[in-house]
């Protein structure tokens, strides 16, 4: 295992320390692994979080116009309720707090329990659950779809809405609209290695890739051979467009790298994706290309489409200033 780390047990703490050193406008609460804005604003507080290993998510989205606090779990493990509670406390300015949760049972259980704890402290807490990954079947029977890179759009839009001074209900409405309008699909070309485990969680042959792989290395829907950028763009778009009708609409587009995929490849993929969308009469209003929701050193990418209306366009364009996203 080649990683720039010290003790595998301390990666999260040391990373968060490194983040606040680079971003002195952020504050780090050690032990509970919370990153929050140093200067608080009087507004609905936004809290997101989840397992570590998805950097810049989630701490990288704390700042003006996006999150008020991010809560880090251990690598790929949901943060515990006491941590989330601290995030809620730091984000709360009396206007209530919205939790942006990704749809994993671990996250849901921990955030739910934290919500109960916060409510015992008379903090009003609402939550939304992001489930954008079309690789997984939508289901009410089982846990259903995972939340992946589309979460970043939810941070952005709900964050912009909260910054306008809107009420908790209004911010929640926007977050839910964003969730309803967002679809993602990813694929992996090489695995990642958990620092505490020391070897890859799965293996892919010389010429194999996996379509629909999750951001924790959870298996995908199809193992296949290496594809060209044209083919990949087709596969990823097809799954997304089959699931939700974006025809005729304007969209936000995110071409996201999983950690080890160079920007060159993401831009080449973007080139193909935009061609396909143009053909399908889908107009790209704004594009984000980069590492937004990663999976340690996994090689691969995901594509996210967000259907926009006038309200969401304005919120997407609203200024934000965080380590990982500045608009």
């Amino acid at each position, binding site marked *: 295992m080649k990683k720039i780390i010290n003790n595998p*047990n301390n990666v999260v703490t040391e990373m968060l320390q490194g983040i606040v050193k680079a971003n002195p406008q952020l504050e780090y609460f050690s032990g509970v692994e919370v990153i929050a804005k140093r200067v608080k604003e009087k507004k609905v507080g936004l809290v997101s979080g989840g*397992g570590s290993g998805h950097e810049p998510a989630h701490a990288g989205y704390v700042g003006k116009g996006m999150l008020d606090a991010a809560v880090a*779990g*251990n*690598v*790929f*493990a*949901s*943060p*515990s*309720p*006491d*941590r989330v509670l601290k995030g809620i406390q730091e984000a709360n300015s009396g206007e209530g707090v919205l939790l942006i949760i990704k749809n*994993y*049972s*671990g996250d849901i*259980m*921990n955030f739910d*329990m934290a919500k109960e704890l916060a409510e015992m402290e008379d903090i009003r807490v609402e939550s939304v659950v992001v489930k954008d990954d079309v*690789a*997984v079947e939508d289901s009410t*029977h*089982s*846990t259903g779809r*995972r939340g992946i890179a589309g979460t970043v759009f939810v941070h952005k839009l709900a964050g912009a809405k909260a910054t306008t001074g809107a009420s908790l209900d209004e911010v929640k409405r926007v977050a839910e609209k964003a969730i309803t309008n967002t679809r993602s699909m990813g694929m992996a070309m090489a695995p990642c290695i*958990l620092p*505490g*485990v020391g070897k890859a*969680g*799965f293996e892919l042959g010389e010429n194999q890739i996996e379509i629909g792989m*999750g951001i*924790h*290395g*959870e*298996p995908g*829907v*199809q193992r296949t051979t290496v594809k060209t950028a044209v083919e990949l763009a087709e596969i990823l778009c097809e799954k997304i467009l089959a699931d939700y009708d974006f025809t005729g609409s304007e969209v936000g587009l995110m071409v996201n790298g999983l950690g080890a995929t160079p920007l060159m490849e993401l831009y080449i993929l973007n080139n193909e994706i935009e061609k396909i969308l143009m053909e399908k009469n889908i107009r790209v209003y704004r594009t984000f290309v980069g590492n937004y929701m990663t999976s340690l050193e996994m090689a691969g990418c995901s594509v996210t489409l967000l259907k926009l209306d006038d309200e969401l366009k304005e919120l997407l364009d609203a200024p934000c200033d965080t380590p990982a996203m500045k608009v």
Partner: protein
Amino acid sequence: MEIRINSQNYMEYIELVAKKIEASKDYVSELDSITGDGDHWANMNMGFQKLLESKQELVAMRLGQMFQKIGMLIMSTVGGSSGVLYGSAYLKAAKTIGDKTEMDIHLLRDVLEAELNAIMERGNAKPGYKTMIDALYPAVIRLKEAIEKGLDGHEALQELKQGAIDGMNSTKDMEAIRGRACYQANKGVGHIDPGAVTMCYQIETLVEYLCKS
């Protein structure tokens, strides 16, 4: 055979579990890699190592307090699904113990049942969902039946253990409805659930510890 478990005994048991888990790294990690995200062993191991570190403090506590503290420690150290599930389980078990200082087999049964209920509630899950519940549920049921039938302590404990083992094995053919295995195309069919394995380890270790002492 009569069963008496005080804080001292429970800590000895925890130490044995910690050892058992430590030794199961490759197998458990691999199971969670195949069907989940690969960290279940690391999570559980971190949790039990933390309990070992807190040994002095824990053994000095009354049993109920000790369970409460174990719940808090696991919940905050482990995180993930197992952290909050075991955390909830121990917190609820602590309530069941109340201020008693020892568990006999009846209290043990109630404690395990409380844990089972806490996990099902927090996880919004039932037996058959391919989770740790599938090891705990049949174990608890068979212990209850054994006690009702009036079997002796040793036999009742063997039922508990065998229930866990059979339950664990039964997850192999289940389709996952909770946990990360449900994201797989085949819903994890063909692989044992890692959470059921570590649950089973804990029950086996408990039974072996009680039968030896």
